[in-house]
């Protein structure tokens, strides 16, 4: 007796690589890719410049408000708290905002490029 193995028809979904190639080749695909790159670069620059402005504002603030640097909180001078601890939450916040928006840009590209 011969055993016959029944399998599903070979309708393997198109390999992801192919759609990717297609997106690269077509002119329309390139329009989407260019717009994705532009929006990601704009996002990165906005976050970087915003962060650097805040960073630059810290020493200006300390210099502009007399007596602020010498104010003590739990015995620690305020300028030490600001530069030694206060900047880190801002770094984390910038990073979080960037990741969220970058993922959104990519999701929009996926919708446009038509493969999910």
């Amino acid at each position, binding site marked *: 007796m011969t055993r016959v193995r029944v399998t599903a028809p070979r309708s393997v979904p198109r390999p992801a690589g192919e759609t990717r190639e297609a997106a*690269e080749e077509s002119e329309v695909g390139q329009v989407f890719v260019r717009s994705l790159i532009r929006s990601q670069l704009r996002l990165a620059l906005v976050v970087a410049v915003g962060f650097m402005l805040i960073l630059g504002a810290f020493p200006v603030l300390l210099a502009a408000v007399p007596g602020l640097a010498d104010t003590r909180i739990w015995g620690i001078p305020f300028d*030490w708290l600001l530069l030694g601890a206060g900047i880190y939450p801002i770094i984390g916040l910038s*990073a979080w905002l960037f990741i969220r928006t970058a993922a959104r840009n990519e999701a929009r590209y996926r919708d446009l490029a038509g493969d999910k």
Partner: protein
Amino acid sequence: MNPAVGVVALVVVSVATAVIGFYGLRISRTTGDFYVASRTVRPWWNASAIGGEYLSAASFLGVAGLILLSGTDALWFPVGYTAGYLMLLLFVAAPLRRSGAYTIPDFTEARLDSRAVRRVTSLVVVVVGWLYIVPQLHGAALTIRITTGLPPWVGSAAVVIVVCLTVVAGGMRSITFVQAFQYWLKLTALAVPVLFIVFTLAGNGTAAVAPAAVNPTAMAPAGAYQNVSLLVALLFGTLGLPHVLVRFYTNPDGSSARRTTLIVLGLLSVFYLFPTAYGLAGRMFAPELARSGRADAVVLLLPGQLIGGTAGDLLSALVVAGAFAAFLSTTSGLVVSLAGVISQDVLGGGIRGFRLAAVVSAIVPLGFAVTTDSMALAGSVGLVFAFTASTVCPVLLLGIWWRGLTDTGAIAGMVTGAVLCGGAMVCGAVLGAETPFWLAQPAAWTVPAAFAVMVFASRRTKDRIPKTMTRVMTRLHTPERPLVTER
């Protein structure tokens, strides 16, 4: 300090490193495992490993030492080291992961379709790696001298031997576990003693010897130029460090590379609170350390000095262990990435070549370290960041974001940056304390110069834009599909 404390701490850390390394050996089988852990490391592990690798002698010892010496000016160092990772996240993390390359030279060759660019990049990466290993070995020498009284070279040699053994045995996979462990060890080793010190001093009402704002030495405070130039070096230098970049290839895809970086930023932010606390405590309770020329050792000496007794010895042992974890992890990360570059470019790849290259990449800086004297650790590492920011950073940023980059432009820019920044470093070493401020902290002009030359030379050679550019740019920036099986 009791000399046995230092020796015991060193031996324990080395043995722990070797054990975790050999455990990793059992699961590293293929060439891929050796280079980049087959890209299957989870974000938390990977982030801890990146943190462990990144926090070097400069962060563990140097930052606190510099804060003790120059107060709030030195706070820009930890801020810059952390914000450098922000820049890496913004401009490099995901595209670099999507490039699918193993090393920076792999990336530049693929992007610019040129062997010549690959060779120049390899050379620059090896120089950066060696320059960065030397301060680690200086830190080890300092630690051994201060804590055990043994000759300084023993410390440097011990680090090189342990690193060679672990890297040769297990490659990147075991290094990932070793480094994840070492991040948490370093954090504990700084946090526990400093919290102990703070609570003890607050508990028995010890009065500060000097207010934090008082400068303990006659050193002139840094001007605005130095601070800005330093920040340029740290912000843009981080994203070109070879051992940091190779880590991103161990993420499964671009978005996990971003998530990993976010975790790393959190880990670094927590870590840097503690060197800052040491520096501040040193300034207020032990300013004489700055005057005796032992500022870089403040982290090692403070527990013994302010607590003393058995508790002081135990805390010192913990700090020494953490310090060695710092030297070992950064050095092994650098050795792995250098060995990857050297073995592929000179020895034709393969596991044997990788092992040989690993030994070479560790021995050369040992020679430098033993024959030179250590400057301030954080300062000499700051110069390495300036060099990276003037060479690798422009080619990465322009390669990822600008379609017009050509091989000629990339080479011209990297050579310009290397010559200007390298020249400034040599002048600084020759002139010593006489160095003018713009040479001592060169990043503010060498980085823009390298970018300008790279853009200008690329514009002049538009016909050399590689034919593969469109395809490579698409690959760098488009998200991976969930079912991707290519690569």
